């Protein structure tokens, strides 16, 4: 996945250093350090309240940080003059609650940003929409409204909507937590397909087996820090008592 000509530092596309974030008196992030390389699939696991979703949201500047630095491609996300439009063109994010636009059809949902932001002509945008909807297996639902779709279909549509902007990095925030096991599978297959295509991805997940299967790196967050990090093997032989305890509760 990594081209030989790139120096290692250029290969790092997301870099968090000493990131702190509080909500009022609640310190959610207490010094998060994380580097993600191009094409890497990172799964963030941890108890609720460990700061994993907040860390993800900070990367897309949905939350501003109190201290530390975040770099995404060429964007210095922690700086006040960060170009948010350019940042969001490089990052796609998918949420637990899908957040499709209920007044638009699936096709219109996907076409909105390419036409409004990238000024793509409608025929080209429709073609693009059909390509990404085909990729997530929803082509036949193009003209339906979101409310007519199952949760799994809505989530795949949300992924297609992000993909239509051709992001360099995809963030997934507990995208299957609202789905029953049967629907979870169809969403995970789409994500796995993306991973196989070399997309750089950071996902917050509760699906340990899925993380084990597709992630290059597992990041265990605990008390607002990256507590333990490594390949899938850390799920079998955790290096810290906290991760061991967490895994016992999860499985």
């Amino acid at each position: 996945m990594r081209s030989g000509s790139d120096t290692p530092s250029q290969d790092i596309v997301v870099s968090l250093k000493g990131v702190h974030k509080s909500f009022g008196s609640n310190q959610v992030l207490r010094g998060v350090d994380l580097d993600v390389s191009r094409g890497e699939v990172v799964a963030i696991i941890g108890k609720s309240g460990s700061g994993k979703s907040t860390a993800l949201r900070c990367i897309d500047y949905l939350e501003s940080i109190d201290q530390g630095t975040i770099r995404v491609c060429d964007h210095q996300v922690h700086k006040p003059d960060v170009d948010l439009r350019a940042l969001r063109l490089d990052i796609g994010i998918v949420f637990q609650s899908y957040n499709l636009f209920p007044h638009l059809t699936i096709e219109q949902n996907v076409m909105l940003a390419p036409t409004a932001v990238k000024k793509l002509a409608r025929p080209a945008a429709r073609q693009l929409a059909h390509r990404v909807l085909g990729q997530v297996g929803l082509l036949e639902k193009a003209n339906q409204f979101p409310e007519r779709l199952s949760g799994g279909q809505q989530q795949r549509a949300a992924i297609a909507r992000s993909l239509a902007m051709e992001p360099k990095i995809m963030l997934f925030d507990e995208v299957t937590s609202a789905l029953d096991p049967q629907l979870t599978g169809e969403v995970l297959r789409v994500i796995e397909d993306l991973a196989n295509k070399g997309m750089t991805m950071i996902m917050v997940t509760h699906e340990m087996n899925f993380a084990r299967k597709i992630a290059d790196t597992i990041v265990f967050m605990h008390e607002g820090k990256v507590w333990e990090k490594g390949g899938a093997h850390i799920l079998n032989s955790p290096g810290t008592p906290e991760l061991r305890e967490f895994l016992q509760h999860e499985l």
Partner: protein
Amino acid sequence: MGASFAVGYLMFLLKGAVWTVGLSLIALSCGGVLAFIVALCRIAPNRWLRLVTALYIQIIQGTPVLVIIFLTYFGLPSLGWSVSPLLAASLSLSVYVSAYLGESWRSSLQSVPRAQWEAAECLALSRAQRMMKVVLPQAIRIATPPTVGFMVQIIKNTSLASIVGFIELVRAGQIVNNTIFQPFLIYLLIAVLYFAMCYPLSILSRRLEVSAGEKAYA
């Protein structure tokens, strides 16, 4: 009274009713434009803009419409602007509508989930695009039933314009009554005419509310 008389008076009342509708439409359209601006200011990022608009709403909502009409019709001329009854009534009712509808539309805009703003933001849409393409279309659906319901209030409140001599339905009734002195008959007729204008709107509002409820998003 003779039959020919009655027809003439009835026509006069109906003409008044047409002006009631006309004044209502003026108040709704001018007030609606203002209300939209008020609603936008109420959710603006700028704190002072929000505060000043909130104060405006409180002042207007805490003032009888009649006093606003007196202020424009008697107050403005004392400052050197001459104001016709139609202009005074239009201005006052528009101000009144802007405060009430502005606040109602603000809550409609804010009842579109924050996650919708966020999803649009993450797709790199500008603030204006988020508003126009994502939030506003959803807010309009939410706002339609209460707005149609509020039109009933506008229609009824146009009767206050009679006091500054604008000939709408009530003023027309007063004029007819001064001639034939049949207050019970005339004001009953006027009540029926108001009801005929308001009732369909009430029904429409209720229907819209029901169908909006049925289509409510999960």
